[in-house]
């Protein structure tokens, strides 16, 4: 697949499906090829889909508050799979409870994510960033 392929899914035991549906729709409308692996996806599911589709980015969604536990070791697994260069975003409600956003962002950057999005991020923003990071916009 081409340079516009991205893998999208909700990680862990999380079933929040609405944001995913919207992201899927928005990314497609913006010309991306979206491999949507749905909710309740494991790290392995993401990696498998990325390899199979030759995706250039993985977009992880997590709403339910367990993102941190669910994302531990993800970076290492990606490296093992030879995906060390893939672009890695995460968004949703990443902390449990009322957290300081700077801390949350820092934590997920440490876990290997290139961009970390606060709750209520609108799809436009991600699309802009993706295009920029993938060098699709001149």
């Amino acid at each position, binding site marked *: 697949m081409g340079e516009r392929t991205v893998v999208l899914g909700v990680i*862990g*035991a*999380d*079933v929040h*499906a*609405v944001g995913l*549906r*919207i992201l899927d*729709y928005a990314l497609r409308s913006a010309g991306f090829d979206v491999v949507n692996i*749905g*909710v*309740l996806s494991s790290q392995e599911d993401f990696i498998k889909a990325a390899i199979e589709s030759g995706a250039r980015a993985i977009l992880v969604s997590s709403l*339910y*508050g*367990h993102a*941190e*536990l669910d994302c531990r070791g993800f970076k290492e697994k990606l490296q093992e799979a030879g995906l060390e260069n893939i672009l890695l975003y995460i968004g949703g*409600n990443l*902390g*449990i*409870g*009322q*957290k300081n956003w700077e801390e949350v962002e820092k934590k997920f950057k440490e876990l290997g994510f290139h961009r970390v999005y606060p*709750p*209520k991020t609108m799809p436009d923003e991600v699309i802009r960033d993706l295009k920029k990071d993938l060098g699709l916009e001149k």
Partner: protein
Amino acid sequence: MFIKNKKWDHKYFLNMREEVLNSWPTGREVDLKEAFLYLASLPKEKHTDYVLKEASQNGKTLLQPRAGVPILKDHIALLQYLQDEGGADILPTTIDSYTRQNRYKEAQLGIEESLKEGRYLLNGFPAVNYGVKACREIIESVKVPVEIRHGTPDARLLAEITLAAGFTSFEGGGITYNIPYAKDVPLENSILYWQYVDYLVGIYAQEGILINRESFGPLTGTLVPPSISIVIGIIEAILAAEQGVKSFSVGYGQCGNIIQDVASIKILDKLTKEYLASFGYYDVHLTTVLHHWMGGFPEDEAKAYAVISFGTIAGAISKVTKIIVKTPQEAIGIPTKEANASALKNTRQVLNMLENQNFIDEDKLSQEEYIIEREVRSILNRVYEIGEGDIAVGTVRAFSSGILDVPFAPSKYTYGRVMPVRDNEGAIRYFDFGNLPFDEEIKNFHKERLEERARFEKREVSFQMVLDDIYAISKGRLIGRPR
């Protein structure tokens, strides 16, 4: 798998029970005889069904927050705070998401890390891991009944442990805790798991201990048309009653149009009672539950308060038995205890100020009731038909063929074609009926309502309109108007 709406054979239950109790070490703590004695020894004010009965007799609406943290003593302190400071009438214990997927090992890890790091790595209370004894500390530390709330397709072990521990209400059902909460659990399985739970509750009932069972009406929380939610509530009530449940609550997630919300709660109450009776279940104590808006919330607390206060109006007018209260921090994350208690106070104040007020247009209400009732009957009768007289069989077949469908559900066992959108007054209508078995009268009604909005907004009804509606409340309004 073979599934029927038929009271289980006791041996069948006992065999399965062995397996269930052995699936995690704490299962062996459950001793039914001892549990009966324990529950019988609890004061009546700790029994949900008693509290619900008192409330409906006095026309009072009860308030219940959402709450659950992974560390036991914190969880107790949280519940006490919500009881004393917030004035909660019924307390919750919300279960974490690993437990909901029966991933007790990960839950255990979550408890341990939470204890070690002094912050919560789980989004709820992992009751299975704690076991019966630890759970009883909760019941013994508060003065009001406590309900288990979760989202677990297979909650058999959770039910065994928590009922024995003295939780007198248990939320969920084979449909409502599968379709919005799972991706690939077949409905036959989840219905079977929940027949187990209901049968267990039936055993308690035989001992004179009434455990309240509650269906999770809001489903995906996102623009669910009332008739879908009501049909599913009725089916779960029937399934539960067949297994011996004697106290049941049907729930409904606020849509936002006051007429539609009040009409829905009335029809939910009326038709559930009617169908229960027509199936021969005469002795089920039925009550209704309203959930404040279950979709995306505004991040701003003042706006979130507005959504909450606004949501209470329909509860007050419909005299619903219980409201499950949202908080001003809904959009951000699990709320602080203060925010949670504040939401209860806010809700109580609105309820009290609307006490005895009746300003609803009965004609509009009847019109809306009429259409909802027709929709519900259309679906339910068809479910019964294709189930060849068995509502459980019918349900499975209805979901696979789209006769029953839930919008935005993650489960692959939904047909997934129904698409809702708001009309020009904010009521949730059908934009795509999928395979719902509606006649022309119903379909035209919805079409006309949507055309009215399309004309008003000078644009076609489209997925963009649906998107706008999904975001609308979080962006400050009910209807997703263009721009």
